[in-house]
């Protein structure tokens, strides 16, 4: 028995942590909010092999499995890497696209405009069409996290062959990767908050010494700490083609969504008014958390799936 990331995933995670500390700063994220596709950052991710992480080595990728995938995404979440991060990694695993960071793939929303379409090079429609985008955003719908702007798009359609299994795996990976990204975002907000409450003084002492600050933070940490092993278990279930892969993926997304949202809520409160301004960085990570906690299925959606799996769904 060994429950944890394999060495290659740990090495990738640590490497990414180092480079992203300088390659993706809050300034980078703010540029993305202004519409910058952050090509330099994506090129750097390409040099690291991140976009082709799930692509086999024969096909030029890193050939890592879902454990490497969640390890990398947790760090990308921590750094707040803008753009369709999860979507690109899982799309490159099924569509022949460059892995050097020049392709950023959004996933066609079920109805209406697509998140990230304005800064992407491609849009994948799961019914089996890949669009190569020919011009920028047609019509942009603003989002709370401005790096996720929805847009309609025009592009050259290219048929790709997607089996039901491909689509099922794609959806599992999408929910799982988003869960990992959320826990990285949560860890970043926690770090910002720990730094803040150790520095900020009121009533003559650091506010981090107050139990009114400590206890909600401790509870939020319990949430994220117990969600991470479930993310790992779900990754392993996908690797094993386990019958329970869907169950574990739903658990991972439900727990990570709730835990990351809870963390964002507590961290904002611990900052007092300082968190309630776009001039301070916390909101860059909080708003991504709000969006992603609802993307790829809400916590309630996934609990419903778990209930169905367990046979406890009430008959309507």
């Amino acid at each position, binding site marked *: 028995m060994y429950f944890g990331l394999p060495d290659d995933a740990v090495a990738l995670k640590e490497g990414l942590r180092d480079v992203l500390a300088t390659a993706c700063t809050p300034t980078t994220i703010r540029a993305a909010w202004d519409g910058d596709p952050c090509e330099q950052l994506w090129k750097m991710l390409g040099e690291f092999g991140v976009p082709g992480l799930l692509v086999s080595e024969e096909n030029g990728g890193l050939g890592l499995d879902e454990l490497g995938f969640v390890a990398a995404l947790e760090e990308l979440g921590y750094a707040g890497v803008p753009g369709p991060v999860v979507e690109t990694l899982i799309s490159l695993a099924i569509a022949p696209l460059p892995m050097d960071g020049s392709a950023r793939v959004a996933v066609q929303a079920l109805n209406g405009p697509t998140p990230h379409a304005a800064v992407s090079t491609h849009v994948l429609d799961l019914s089996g069409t890949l669009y190569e985008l020919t011009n920028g955003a047609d019509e942009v719908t603003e989002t709370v996290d401005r790096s996720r702007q929805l847009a309609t798009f025009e592009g050259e359609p290219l048929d790709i062959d997607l089996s039901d299994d491909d689509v099922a795996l794609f959806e599992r990976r999408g929910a799982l990767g988003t869960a990992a990204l959320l826990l990285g975002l949560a860890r970043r907000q926690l770090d910002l908050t720990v730094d803040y409450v150790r520095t900020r003084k009121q009533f003559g002492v650091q506010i981090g010494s107050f139990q009114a600050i*400590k206890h909600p933070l401790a509870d939020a940490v319990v949430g994220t700490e*117990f969600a991470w092993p479930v993310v790992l278990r779900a990754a392993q279930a996908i690797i094993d083609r386990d019958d329970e892969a869907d169950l574990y993926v739903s658990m991972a997304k439900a727990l990570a969504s709730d835990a990351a949202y809870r963390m964002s809520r507590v961290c904002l409160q611990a900052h007092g008014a300082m968190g309630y301004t776009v001039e301070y960085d916390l909101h860059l990570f909080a708003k991504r958390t709000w969006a992603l906690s609802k993307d790829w299925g809400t916590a309630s959606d996934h609990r419903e799936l778990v209930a169905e799996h367990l046979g406890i769904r009430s008959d309507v």
Partner: protein
Amino acid sequence: MDLRETEAEQQFRAEARDWLEEHVPHGLPSGDTKEGFALHLEWEKALFDARYAVVSWPEQYGGRGASVWEWIAFEEEYYRAGGPQRVTQNGIFLLAPTIFEFGSQEQQDTLLPRMASAQDLWCQGWSEPGSGSDLASLKSRADKVDGGWKLSGQKTWTTRGAFCTHLFGLFRTDPESERHHGLTYFLLPLDTPGVTVRGFARLDGDEGFAEVFLDDAFVPDSAVLGEVGKGWSVAMATTGSERGLTLRSPGRYTATVDRLLEVAADRDPDDSEVQRLAQAWMDAEAYRLFTLQQVTNERAGRGRAGESSLNKLFWSELDIRLHELALDLLGPDAELEGPWSKGFQFSLSGPIYAGTNEVQRNIVSERLLGLPRK
């Protein structure tokens, strides 16, 4: 990641399952009453005779030398089979790991086999009337005399103290000392002259508590566990066990959730109850997975200070949620005396014993997050 059990582990689990299915007693009364306790002791002796009382201990002390993975598997099977809460738990799960770490060879050889066979039954003497969460303020003292110590003071909230035979506790050996300095960990029989025990009832009405009065009770030097004056660090090893894995293995909660789902199957849960049932199942499973990760990390030397406080916060809150949901499903029947109402009342003690959850939140924020103490 390797989630497979070895062949030996599978065999261990299968044998334990077969034995437990055949032997676990059902419908035992509470072990926190005099009559119930006696019946639980019979069960403890049956476990010992089958060498299932203390599976993780070395064979010479009555165990099987089981690995921690096998121990987790045993616990899963134990609670899956409906095994009762262990009345010996404060000895075998809390004191024993501390004796293994700090005890002399002689202490190990004399105390452990009698503990395993439920001949000696241990209770914990830490809290005092004036020292609860602030344990380091304790006042019970031990005065040095020829060949030993004279203990005096009062301990309280001693679980099953009225039925146990022995006490482990903290006493101040250096009268000049303050806080966690100058404390010593003592082990003593409750029939020592000068010791008086008075049982009293818990929230659920059972006589599960006791207060212990010590009036110049003499104990020999060999009653000291670890070094004189180092009792605090010895005690902290015990609290790590109490908050973390050894006392509250994941099998307890996965088994409770299984029973909860049985309750739900007989009723018609509404949408919000369905959501809570799914959450309950996920949380118990998350606790199990967290535990596997924790054991892996500890074996790899990557354990974190204060991590057992995360366990304690999680399992204690989870246990209450599981029972609250069961009572909601039972509706008007929830008020009837029975396993769920009993279990609910017991679950309410979870955030209080083993260090209140308020103390645990301090530990998480100070040791894991590095927030300032004051």
